[in-house]
């Protein structure tokens, strides 16, 4: 375990060595941002709307008491969407979509000697392949989480409008009631950590792939599994430290 941890730290360190030509690396960062950010918007949209809707309906169901104002359901749905559902569920989905793609892309480059070709040319292969992905991850995952928060709350509104579980005016009142901006900060810190975890762990798994197609698939699976575990662990740590 310590060997793996040491190798992971060294790889991340190597990734952030001074680039050969900043312009070429910047172009890679932009390409990765489009791939991670724009490429994931579809799945994040679908998940966020449905999770927001389901969360609102379930909270409304559990608070069906004449003693509790109906707007409370809106407040609870807002906090749980912003604090937990949007960052964590989005990150778990992104680990599957983005992480597996990173691990298999780098793994394939390893087994087809493309990484060797980079090294022969004198290119810092971890820097060229991994650093742009990590940078894109820590920028785009928080952006996707903000997007997910908006759609999650919108999903809750749509659920109220369609099912009538609580009146939409109460839902909106609940959204505004007792809002603490700290929850946004917590969600964004989580998103930043998750972005780093997904990209760096999956890149590590891909970079040290050896063998052939079978091992590339195994690396992608391992990368996604470890990313999910560390996302949940980081979720716990950030939540307990910041709240």
């Amino acid at each position, binding site marked *: 375990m310590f060997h793996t941890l040491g190798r992971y730290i060294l790889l991340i360190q190597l990734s952030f060595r001074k680039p*050969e*030509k900043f312009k*070429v690396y910047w172009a890679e960062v932009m390409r990765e941002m489009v791939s991670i950010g724009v490429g994931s918007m579809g799945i994040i949209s679908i998940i966020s709307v449905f999770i927001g809707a389901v969360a609102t309906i379930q909270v409304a169901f559990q608070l069906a008491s004449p003693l509790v104002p109906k707007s409370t359901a809106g407040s609870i749905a807002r906090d749980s969407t912003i604090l937990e559902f949007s960052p964590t569920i989005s990150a778990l989905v992104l680990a599957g979509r983005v992480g597996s793609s990173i691990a298999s892309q780098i793994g*394939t*480059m390893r087994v*087809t*000697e*493309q990484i*060797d*070709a980079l*090294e*022969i*040319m*004198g*290119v*810092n292969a971890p820097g060229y392949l991994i650093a742009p992905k990590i940078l894109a991850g820590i920028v785009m995952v928080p952006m996707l989480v903000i997007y997910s928060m908006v759609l999650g709350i919108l999903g809750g509104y749509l659920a109220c409008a369609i099912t009538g579980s609580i009146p939409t005016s109460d839902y909106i009142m609940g959204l505004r009631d007792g809002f603490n901006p700290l929850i946004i900060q917590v969600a964004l810190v989580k998103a930043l950590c998750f972005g780093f975890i997904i990209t760096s762990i999956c890149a590590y798994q891909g970079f040290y792939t050896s063998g052939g197609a079978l091992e590339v698939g195994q690396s992608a699976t391992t990368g996604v599994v470890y990313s999910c575990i560390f996302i949940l662990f980081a979720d716990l740590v950030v939540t307990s430290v910041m709240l």
Partner: protein
Amino acid sequence: MIEIKDIYKTFGENEVLKGISAVFESGKNNLIIGGSGSGKTTLLKCIVGLHEPTKGDVHFDGQEFTSMTFEERVPIRKEIGMLFQNSALFDSMTVEQNIMFPLNLFTDMSQSEKQDRADFCLGRVNLKDKNKLFPAELSGGMKKRVGIARAIAMEPKYLFVDEPNSGLDPKTSIVIDELINELTQEYKITTVIVTHDMNSVMGIGDHIIFLHQGKKAWEGSNKDIAHTDNQELNDFVFASKFTQAAKEKL
């Protein structure tokens, strides 16, 4: 000129290379031959720095390469071109982008100069019209030729070639061999080729070292190979009835 001195390489308990020394001169096709598992590719990877030798040195024109740091190696690496067994072209880039990649990173050429250089390299391997294709759209022989074009893009002093003929038909193999030979002669490149293709050995083998069980078992040229009394080399080169018959005619 490349000089390797007493190279050893061990993987765990398995000693793959056992004290190999050789000198590879410029303007010559230097071939490393041997059976499967004899250590040819491992030796090549030790020379270019993809593997660190357990013991021994590699000198590029007198500069000791093995003990250099990553940064110190970069100037020498810029003078190295390599053709990999499976070509190792970057899948996400077109043929032209593959060739321009090292130029983008290591030169201050303008876009038009890089374009001209890519066109020249592609012209050199007769693939000028394939510049916009992706590697997946090319045949095996074309990939090898693009690999050669990328390897010569930076005008290398040293060219390393790993199994250039694997997976190719005999006619295409000869085209690739002749291309490597032409480039070696024309630009006075120090070329090191790992192969077990006997057509390459007899056709372009100016200087050959034969590896057997991790040791250098024989050294000479393609002219000497037919008259050697080295048993291991004879068993390797003249393994088939066809090559035995050819030897008898020589």
